[in-house]
């Protein structure tokens, strides 16, 4: 488990995923309910969540990433004081690392930069992952280069595949799973920060901050791969895990990304981006737009929309760059599942044998 300097369990809503309705909005909604369908539509708009997403361009792994991430968090109205004495778990994507395909996994420089930001803000930080395809976590740390970087950075690594586990009621209930089992480091964290790689995914179109949380579930319980989740539906279980986890943030490694046959065997696509947000559906919807996908057609985003967060562009406030300025359609596999996810014909389809 992570070693932490604080065991404070005080909660606040600083990083809850959506901005919920204000009392004013509720009263307003009640007031207009009597005046007909137009009023109801307005009330629904007032009720629906909104969120900020920060995009930085021209980013490099040897650049000032700490500054970028700090700026991004503050642009998304994150308060540094929230983290004083708190436990922050950083969750990179180390699904099946190999030195041959470095664009499959979160780059160590992004992990270290994020860790330094939260440490500067007074948090006890550890990095945790339950690699989905490899039982030897030590091998995953070596192949990804993350183990060496964590040692150099004095960061503790929590092997989430083999920790003590505890269950939580499934608050999402989009799948039939009644409970979800989490490792101790996740259960004890005040904030869980998703540090995904921006990638295509050959079954669900894309993987980013929400799907990355598959990797907080322990393999000892769910298997290698976490086939229990697949059998309960990938979109449904992605949403369930996100609904059940406590306070979350997202910092996306979109510098060297993966297109084509992601999430393992795709090709590198250099984008030079870092995205930051407090609301994970909003972050992933923005990533989808940048990749040339229509977020409402990505099944897990569609399930999460207007509940865990906004995916409608009108309710996502872009900070830093606009997504339109950095959009560059990703190559997708030409399959019946993926073809309809494209926002336009701009992204090319590649045949598979």
């Amino acid at each position, binding site marked *: 488990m992570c070693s932490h300097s604080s065991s404070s369990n005080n909660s606040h809503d600083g990083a809850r995923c959506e901005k919920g309705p204000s009392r004013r909005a509720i009263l307003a909604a009640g007031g207009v309910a009597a005046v007909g369908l137009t009023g109801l539509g307005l009330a629904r708009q007032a009720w629906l969540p909104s969120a900020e997403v920060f995009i930085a361009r021209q980013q490099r792994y040897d650049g000032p990433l700490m500054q970028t991430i700090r700026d991004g968090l503050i642009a998304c109205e994150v308060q540094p004081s929230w983290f004083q004495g708190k436990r922050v778990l950083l969750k990179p994507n180390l699904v099946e690392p190999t030195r041959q395909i470095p664009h499959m996994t979160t780059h160590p420089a992004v992990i270290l930069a994020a860790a330094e930001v939260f440490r500067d803000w007074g948090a006890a930080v550890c990095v945790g992952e339950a690699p989905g395809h490899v039982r030897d976590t030590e091998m995953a740390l070596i192949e990804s280069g993350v183990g060496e970087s964590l040692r150099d950075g004095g960061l503790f690594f929590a092997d989430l595949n083999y920790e003590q586990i505890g269950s939580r009621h499934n608050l999402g209930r989009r799948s039939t799973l009644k409970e979800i089992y989490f490792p101790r480091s996740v259960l004890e964290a005040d904030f869980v920060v998703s540090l995904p790689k921006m990638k295509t995914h050959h079954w669900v179109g894309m993987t980013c901050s929400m799907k990355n949380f598959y990797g907080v579930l322990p393999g000892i*319980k769910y298997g290698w791969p976490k086939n229990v989740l697949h059998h309960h539906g990938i979109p449904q279980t992605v949403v369930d895990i996100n609904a059940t986890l406590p306070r979350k943030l997202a910092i996306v490694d979109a510098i060297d990304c993966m297109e084509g046959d992601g999430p*393992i065997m795709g090709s590198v696509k250099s984008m030079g981006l870092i995205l930051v947000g407090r609301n994970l559906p909003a972050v992933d919807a923005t990533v989808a737009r940048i990749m040339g996908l229509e977020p409402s057609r990505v099944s897990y985003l569609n399930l999460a929309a207007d509940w865990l967060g906004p995916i409608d562009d009108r309710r996502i406030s872009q900070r830093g760059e606009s997504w339109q300025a950095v959009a560059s359609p990703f190559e997708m596999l030409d399959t019946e599942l993926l073809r309809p996810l494209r926002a336009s014909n701009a992204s090319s389809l590649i045949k598979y044998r």
Partner: protein
Amino acid sequence: MNTTQLLAQLESTDQWAYHANGPTASEPAAWACMALSFYGKHDAAEKIANWLVHIQQPSGAIGITEDESTPTWPTSLAILAWLSVVSHESAHGKAQFHQSIHRAIRWSLDMHGKASPQKSHIGHDTTIVGWSWAADTHSWLEPTCFHVIALKAAGQAEHPRVLEGLRLIIDRILPTGGSNYGNTQVLGQTLLPHIQPTGLSMLALSDTSAEDQRIELSLQYLANSMQQEQSTYSIVPTASLCFGLLGLTAHRRRPAAANTWLQTAYEQVNQQQPSIYKLSLLALAAREDGMFES
């Protein structure tokens, strides 16, 4: 490698965990039991074997920990642990172990991974039935290997379930050799091999009459990739090293440098609070005649 010191470390704990300060779990307990038993530390091995009897469920299954009764894939490893204990005369007549083995075998033979109709975009044969990590999910490579190894050791080598399990293990070898968690090709793309599942599958396929060119390719993959790991990185991935050596040794292809590699890994493990899981695997991989040779 100083096996005397290593065994003393294994004997000195009641916390059989994957990581130092982690919770006791069935898998590391079973490997520790086998290691102690094979090196003649019968009292310590029996203590663990008794703990496994204690957590065995009425169905015969063993959960992942004492508190978590599911999933039950470690049942296979408990069979191996109990077999290692009863192979010595001091425990040979102890009925509780024989009863536990019998119940666990019966449970294992009843358990099936889910098969599904063959799909064009999946490379492996999804109709072959092996064992799964968790109930009501697909058959995967590593739990199938664990059960095949255990049931063969228990005298069930000709059982149809074991023969089908062997067929699954061969089916999941990549075209150019080596295995991963159990997917060979997806959407026309051949996936990546890894040392640990390849070593485990080679261990499961030892002493069988299986003939497939990919077995030889897998042994070559293991030897080459382990050599490369050792020469490229300063840190040794201990579990992968051990499973790789167990697989190669079972096919009488143990690398000449194996003991040097193990020594390096042992020193590395001892630089931190040691993991019982890793120490146990190191002890088993250090046996130059193979894991099951007495």
